[in-house]
């Protein structure tokens, strides 16, 4: 069963709907003791990374998240939280995976937000990208991106610059796109995580 960290950063109805369509059981994590109820953890998030980090800190769940040995999946801003730092609000984040979150440079040829379907290329044989072919399209909506890192990048995407569509370090996984909105490919990724 998957536990979703419920810290008030955005709407999770689409995520829970996707899990229901896939018959993946889930529940909400509101306090530290709830982590024991689930085998896997999802950290969702939309909006401002700094604000999301503040809410997560206020929830009191940060030490427990950092200590997790179970598989964890960060989605979108939930992914950015797992990194060290974001240029958005000049914010220090969880620092679980030592990479930075930077802002896309606005250009007419590369509009910001990076919004729509873009291709990803799995790297480093990360199991959450199992059965997902290089060049598969996923749905992205974001203005900040996680830098490419040869060690921690689990999938790349190109948008003027090569960035991390997915990252992994040990039991911590994270994706920048929205698997719950990415058609069958997104469903495959959620299944991969559920089956870890």
């Amino acid at each position, binding site marked *: 069963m998957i536990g979703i960290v419920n810290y008030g950063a955005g709407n999770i109805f689409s995520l829970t*709907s996707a899990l229901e369509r896939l018959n993946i059981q889930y529940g909400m994590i509101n306090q530290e003791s709830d982590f024991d109820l689930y085998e896997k953890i999802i950290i969702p998030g939309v909006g401002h990374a700094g604000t999301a980090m503040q809410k997560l800190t206020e929830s009191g769940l940060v030490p427990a998240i950092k200590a997790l040995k179970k598989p964890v999946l960060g989605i979108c801003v939930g992914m950015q939280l797992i990194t060290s730092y974001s240029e958005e609000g000049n914010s220090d984040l969880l620092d679980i995976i030592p990479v930075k979150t930077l802002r896309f440079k606005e250009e*007419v040829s590369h509009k910001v937000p990076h*919004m729509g379907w873009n291709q990803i290329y799995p790297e480093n044989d990360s199991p959450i990208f199992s059965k997902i072919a290089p060049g598969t399209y996923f749905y992205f909506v974001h*203005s900040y991106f996680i830098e490419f890192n040869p060690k921690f990048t689990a999938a790349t995407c190109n948008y003027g610059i090569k960035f991390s569509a997915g990252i992994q370090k040990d039991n911590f996984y994270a994706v920048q796109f929205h698997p719950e*909105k990415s058609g069958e490919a997104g469903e495959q990724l959620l299944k991969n995580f559920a089956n870890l």
Partner: protein
Amino acid sequence: MLSKRIIPCLDVKDGRTVKGVNFVDLRDAGDPVELAWQYSQQGADELVFLDIAATHEKRKTTLDMVKAVARQVNIPFTIGGGISELKDAEALLNAGADKISINSAAVRRPELINELANAFGVQFVVVAVDTKHLPHGDFVHLNGGRIPTEIQTQHWIKEAESRGAGEILLTSMDKDGTKSGFDYILLKEINDRVTIPVIASGGAGNEQDFIDVFQKSDVDAALAASVFHYGEILIPELKALLKQNNIAVRI
């Protein structure tokens, strides 16, 4: 590569889709959930629902529809119509809408764009603009093109962008319903001026119109209603053709 998006637009009233829809294998052409699901299976990249009779009294019906769509459909969708306050938008977000589209309310009170962007992020805020050519320029029109304003379309779009619009849905009222192709000239002019995505709307009649709109104006997405609903253009064939013409599409 970021793909160009194909977006069917569905008009809804009282939680039901209106206008003729002519899919052979559809059990209930008025059911927005079934239609949305069909379109997602055909390869639509995104959907737009326009609530054409949105009122406060009927808000709950719309929210129920949004929830039903969010439960069943695995692609993003936008809801437009009757959104004039933060709480309207928040209810739609919580019901599972990915984006909301605002039009007349933003023209009447432009601060609404700032408020929505600050509260929910720019990615949530689509500003829809209905425009018409007049002898002295392009001007924003309200209420489905019926009410002209003195606001120049180009100026309004730049203002909307600076206030926090995450995307522009530009409908040419001169082209809408004519099936004579999109307004490539205005779309290119707008697209070259902004650094947020632009959705082209109004005028789609055949597959070539979609090739042209992407090649001539380089917009991010193209929206159409009747050509898809009546099956005059099938999305899988359209996307195959776009790909043959070296336009990046998700297949």
